[in-house]
């Protein structure tokens, strides 16, 4: 039953992604551009948040797992509000959303999601020897510095306004946290090796990388993105949609597995 649910979910999300990709390509040169793609984009964002809420309710809030997923869900909610308000600014207010309130919502999502990953490590009880701890600390620090450096180099340009520069610097810091969360996810997946919860944590890693790649594309060409130059616009948006759907897949997979385990208690 659990496998069936997961297979159906993957099939539905694959269809959704394919339809979204084709809609982007067709709409780019069509008369209804901007309407359907925005709905599809927001749908994937909402699905990520909804799956987080479903998983949090599955665990409940009295335990560390539920608390960790509550943080991740709140982060995804802030991303949804950020994306929604970004589209609202762009389409209905005709104001350039970069850099403005939507960015604040999106930036708020980073520490919440990274915090959720960090809280979850308490549950897993990852035990590392001294050498591994030092290696991970050094590696994570170097990774954070490298990401911040690369993103600032690509995304912070002299011609930008100060607000745009600040947003991109904060986003670089946010991404460094998120990619370190990816390392945490890798450790958790390894710890759960052989169990049903290993795969969702591996999927989290791909989601984080896809989100990062989308940001690099958009952040390095913010004005081309706003002008909706097809190659930049479609590739950045599709990478973000992929990231949201993968986040959602991971969270639903965990929820399905926990639900199945709950059913086994009573022998259902």
């Amino acid at each position, binding site marked *: 039953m659990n496998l069936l649910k997961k297979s159906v979910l993957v099939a539905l999300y694959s269809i959704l992604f394919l339809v979204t990709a084709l809609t982007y390509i067709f709409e780019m040169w069509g008369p209804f551009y901007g309407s359907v793609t925005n709905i599809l984009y927001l749908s994937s964002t909402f699905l990520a948040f909804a799956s987080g809420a479903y998983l949090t309710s599955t665990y*409940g809030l*009295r335990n560390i797992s539920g608390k960790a997923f509550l943080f991740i869900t709140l982060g995804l909610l802030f991303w949804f509000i950020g994306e929604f308000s970004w589209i609202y600014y762009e389409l209905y207010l005709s104001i350039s959303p970069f850099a403005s309130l939507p960015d604040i919502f999106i930036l708020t999502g980073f520490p919440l999601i990274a915090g959720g990953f960090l809280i979850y490590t308490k549950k897993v009880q990852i035990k590392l020897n001294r050498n591994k701890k030092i290696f991970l600390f050094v590696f994570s620090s170097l990774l954070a510095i490298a990401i911040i450096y690369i993103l600032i180099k690509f995304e912070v340009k002299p011609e930008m306004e100060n607000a745009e520069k600040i947003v991109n610097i904060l986003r670089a810091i946010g991404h460094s946290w998120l990619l370190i969360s990816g390392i945490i996810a890798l450790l958790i997946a390894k710890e759960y090796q052989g*169990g*049903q*919860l290993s795969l969702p944590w591996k999927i989290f890693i791909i989601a984080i990388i896809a989100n990062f790649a989308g940001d690099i594309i958009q952040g390095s060409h913010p004005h081309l993105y706003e002008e909706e130059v097809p190659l930049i616009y479609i590739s950045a948006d599709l990478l973000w949609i992929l990231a949201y759907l993968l986040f959602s897949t991971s969270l639903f997979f965990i929820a399905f597995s*926990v639900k199945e385990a709950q059913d086994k*208690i009573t022998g259902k």
Partner: protein
Amino acid sequence: MQKKLDLCKIYKIIEVNLGSHGLELYKEFYKDKNEQTIIASLSELLPDLIGKRNAKKQLKNLK
């Protein structure tokens, strides 16, 4: 006292892995059973969810 402490630890492991609802189900379904029976049940259930290594680690302190 020792018995009560062990049960608290068991409940904590159940709740963190199977959620608050999972704990309620355990309490209801295993209310007449002793701790060893609950641990034996968890030893069967948890490896499928979190892998043998992590399940063993979490249950190690209970036995």
